């Protein structure tokens, strides 16, 4: 039972370390490396990048020696709805203003759970928006435009 097999998790992890290490190494190589006495902007990053590549290789090798365990479920639905939420907020907060932008992003995020019902989501996000406007905009006085130019204001 001792055939050479790679742990999927460690293989991906090692390759990721190696890829990031190479990326930084290539970038650092384009900078002034300098000497140990007078280090240039590329010296320290190049050393670190080299270390990361070495660690990546070790992770892959170690992965052949451990018992493989499954990766477990992946939160596809969560990623689909949650990761775009701050992006949507970023895209609209200047144009639409704080209130509508927060409402839309909150609504988008709310559907990341399979248990969320549309009615509950609307109610929850409305309350959340109201709370945030009172606390962040009025009480803490953060300099957000509540309604933006896209709405003709």
């Amino acid at each position: 039972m001792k055939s050479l097999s790679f742990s999927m998790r460690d293989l991906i992890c090692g390759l990721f370390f190696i890829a990031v290490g190479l990326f930084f190494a290539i970038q650092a190589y384009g900078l002034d490396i300098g000497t140990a006495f007078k280090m240039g902007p590329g010296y320290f990053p190049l050393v670190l990048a080299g270390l990361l590549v070495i660690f990546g290789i070790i992770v892959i090798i170690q992965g052949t020696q451990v018992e493989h365990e499954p990766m477990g479920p992946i939160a596809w639905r969560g990623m689909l709805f949650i990761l775009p939420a701050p992006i949507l907020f970023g895209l609209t907060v200047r144009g639409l203003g704080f209130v509508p932008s927060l409402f839309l992003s909150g609504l988008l995020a709310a559907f990341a759970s399979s248990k969320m019902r549309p009615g509950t989501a609307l109610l929850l996000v409305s309350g959340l928006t109201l709370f945030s406007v009172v606390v962040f905009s009025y009480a803490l006085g953060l300099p957000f435009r509540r309604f933006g130019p896209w709405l003709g204001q």
Partner: protein
Amino acid sequence: MELIDNLTLGFVTAGHPWNLLFCLIGVILGTLIGVLPGIGATATIAMLLPLTFQLEPVSSLIMLAGIYYGAQYGGSTTAILINMPGESSSAVTAIDGYQMARKGRAGAALAIAAIGSFFAGTVSTILVAVFAPPLTAVALQFGSAEYFSLMIVGLVSSIALAHGSVIKALGMVVLGLLLGLVGTDIYTGTPRFNLGILELSDGLNFVALAVGVFGIAEILRNLENEHERDVMIKKVTNLWPTREDWKAMTAPILRGTAIGSALGILPGGGAILASFASYTVEKRISKTPEEFGKGAIAGVAGPESANNAGAQTSFIPMLTLGIPANPVMALMIGAMIIQGIVPGPNVATEQPALFWGIIASMWIGNLMLILLNLPLIGLWVKLLTIPYYMLFPAIIAFCSIGVYSVNSNVFDLYAVAFFGLLGYGLSKLRCEPAPLLLGFVLGPLLEEHLRRAMIMSRGDPTTFVTRPLSLGLLLLAAAVLVVVLLPSIRKKRDEVFVED
């Protein structure tokens, strides 16, 4: 008596009504997020960090500190009531605390945890006050070589705390260091690793990284499989411990406080290690070890005292040296930097009110916690019944608002999404985010001191081992690394034996 003068200054600062208010807000928020599963102290502090910029530096740091130790209290409440530790440092409390709750002694378990925590908090506050000044004096002698070596100790210690593969944790440290170097080289002004993106020339936003890797990634993990929480204990009665309880808890509390205070001072120590160590000790010296796991009072009193003591004393390296012992301390350092305070030994001399105010506020905060929490337990139990899907949209909204308010830059929000994805991916690969965050905070400092030390020594790398303090620190780092590697070597061997 310098100590008395200092503490007086501290209590006057912390006792200012405004600071008392923020201390109260901090401990209540901390307890709240400690009770609520799926959001930890690190994510909360990262989220609230930007909102504290408008406050005075003292008030904001007092509040952030309150969140940290408040979360320890809240975490033990859920550990005892529903066998689900809200914070990883209360994982041990769940073993015996939950068993006590099942026997109808939830009230006593909660009270023992609270009393132990308060006692430990009091002792460790005094310890911080006594040990901080001499350590600061030592730190003032530090040159670049010593700072470099000290940071190596901090980074290596963060590996010690990470679960799983040591090599992955090392990789995370290096990845964090590299991410910390993105932006502009401080010596030459050369832009580097910014991919031509203008917003990156000041470097990656620390808050965006922390919120993404700790906050967003945590939500994604929780959404993998949603399940309802079971709250068995609807009502908690009989809070006051009996005479036998007092007898059974006194010695473990004293021992837990001692263990926790000692382990907290070590960089990379802190609450988690302390609680595990205390549980092990209590079980070993107990006359009735068979009771452990079935509701032993010592199994609650010891670890709860230890984790609170450890949480408090882990402020010592942060306050005196400017070196974070854990991700929360890294965030506190981030908060200081944003407030225009340079963390390090000079804080105690240049900002005595801030320094002693934070220390004094810890004791006040602990007092607030014990006065508030025992009566409020009913409320916390109710909060536990809120389903998770009602909570996370708010967390995401607050994260977005918080990050955007740092410098009204929408690019930071895209960075949150990116780091959320990165953090989730890394957790799927069993890579822990804590070493990454520490590396990110220390990256620029580490490079600066390395380059400066090398210039001072005219390019001679032996400067790090010929200066005694620096050598001592590097040896300490090496020792920690060896100790960390040992158990995994042993585990490897075990596996080989099993296969034979």
